[in-house]
């Protein structure tokens, strides 16, 4: 796939596909919809079940069973889970880690991608491979030395350490996506800037970076979700439960909630809400972020 196809194709996603000449008979359509609706409902069952369970009092489900019509629906489990499991603290930790990590990884990746995409030197391809492959490794492959390294550098048990490893680990994907995107930008942009006597920094900040905004938005959304969703780094590299982001704190919460599935459900729903909300509001960016990476 040539790199210029990236933008062309992204642009085309919005364009309607011309209708096929032979339309299927309506009854087939109806059947298709019936199947799809069935599948969609089945797909939603785990989440809907969690929501339903979370709204019912433990005492009621203990007597009537979980598969039963509700007498009472309320948010008591949410209040309990929110306060007893100290969820607000963990949510704040997630933000403290995810926001700087996203900003940092986007900024650093944009710089690297800018150099790799807009300038030609002998190591373009190897460098791109160097970055991309780093993102594809399983996390456990590097954890042992990383753990020892963090211990000796004083990064162990710090949120800064978690930010840094997230940045390093996600960088590969971002460099890959952004360099594809930047390669597709017209070449004349840089030339014009150079004729104007603009240095590299100005070219980067004033010409290329603003044009990269759509890709940055998409990547930012996706990266936020991924870093928010990361479970492993904090699990191993943080000691204090108080510093844990909410996804890793799940490991503790599970024990805490154990006998009470209603509380488990309420906790699960609350932890899912940020990414689901993000997805609903920024669906376009989510999908664009993923497909930017795959359109290579």
């Amino acid at each position: 796939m040539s790199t210029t196809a990236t933008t062309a194709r992204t642009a085309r996603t919005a364009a309607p596909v011309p209708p096929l000449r032979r339309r299927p008979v309506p009854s087939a359509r109806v059947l298709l919809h019936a199947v799809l609706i069935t599948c969609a409902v089945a797909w939603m069952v785990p989440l809907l079940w969690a929501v339903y369970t979370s709204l019912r009092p433990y005492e009621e489900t203990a007597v009537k069973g979980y598969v039963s019509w509700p007498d009472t629906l309320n948010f008591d489990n949410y209040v309990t889970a929110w306060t007893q499991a100290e969820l607000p603290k963990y949510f704040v930790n997630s933000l403290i880690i995810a926001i700087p990590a996203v900003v940092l990884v986007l900024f650093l990746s944009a710089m690297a991608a800018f150099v790799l995409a807009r300038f030609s030197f002998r190591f373009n391809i190897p460098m791109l491979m160097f970055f991309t492959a780093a993102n594809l490794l399983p996390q456990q492959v590097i954890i042992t030395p990383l753990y020892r390294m963090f211990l000796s550098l004083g990064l162990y048990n710090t949120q800064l350490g978690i930010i840094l490893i997230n940045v390093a680990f996600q960088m590969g994907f971002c460099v890959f996506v952004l360099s594809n995107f930047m390669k597709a930008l017209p070449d004349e942009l840089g030339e014009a800037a150079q004729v104007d006597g603009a240095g590299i920094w100005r070219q980067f900040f004033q010409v290329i970076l603003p044009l990269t905004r759509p890709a940055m938005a998409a990547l930012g959304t996706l990266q936020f979700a991924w870093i928010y969703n990361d479970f492993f780094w904090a699990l191993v590299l943080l000691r204090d439960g108080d510093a844990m982001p909410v996804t890793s704190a799940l490991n503790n919460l599970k024990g805490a909630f154990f006998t009470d599935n209603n509380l488990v459900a309420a906790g699960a729903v609350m932890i899912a809400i940020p990414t689901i909300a993000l997805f609903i509001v920024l669906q376009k960016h989510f999908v664009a972020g993923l497909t930017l990476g795959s359109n290579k």
Partner: protein
Amino acid sequence: MSQTNTARPPATRRIRRHSTGDRVALAVMLGVPTLVVMGLVWGPAMASVFLSFTRWNGVTPIEFIGLQNYQQIVTIYPPFWPALRNNVIWLAVLALIATPLGLLLAVVLDKQLRATRFYQGVFYLPVVLSLALVGFIWTLIYSQDQGLINQLSGANVNWLGDPDINLGAVLVAAAWRHVGYIMVLYLAGLKGVDPSIKEAAQIDGANQVQTFFQVVFPTLKPINIVVLVVTVIEGLRAFDIVYIINKGTNGLELLSVLITNNIIGEASRIGFGSAIAVILLVISLGFIISYLWQTFRKDAR
């Protein structure tokens, strides 16, 4: 390596034309990210290889023991082979069941269809959840005493506790998330397929299935590669979901869990854990390198 304006290739500029200041800027812009990735990803990956030949508990001096860790892993460490087998099963289920399902959904939803955006949203929704949370949510379905399945069917199956079936149960949850991911990737790919080739094939009398496999699918090759890589990586990386469910024991052993169990906690069998990590690294690199080769080959020319 021409330095003249006229001879340079259209898409790139040569670095040598730049002033010293600019070259320093370029070096910094590429150098800092490189150092970060080198220091925090590749450095540790290489250190894992070194540590895998040693015995070390993190306190006493490091002792070099050659291949002994590897030898012990494959001979006297009972969880290793089940873990490897589980990883393979995990990969196979994602690749042979979840991925085709994702493709099927993408093909169906790529049509001019009422509410296709809604369906896409529904199937994509699990992808935005963390795997840890997926494990958490599915325990509500599988729980023996309080779970949906047993309560609905009246059965008393220990879905997550019975080592003969818990891997299958967990894989349903993992596939639930994976299908949506694959669907989105293929949807993007299908959008890029020129509709006229489909029409041309249909005018030639091909039915929809033939059209897809003979005309459309081959044009999706780049996406297929991405999908394959995503699937393999997800299969090798699997960790969160089993760790949340039972810390990866009792039928849910995975290589990633064995590594973690050996290096954190009081155990601190650092050399031993590293050796398992290297085995996982080698398997991963095999796939990664072939992917990079496929992807960057054309650019390199």
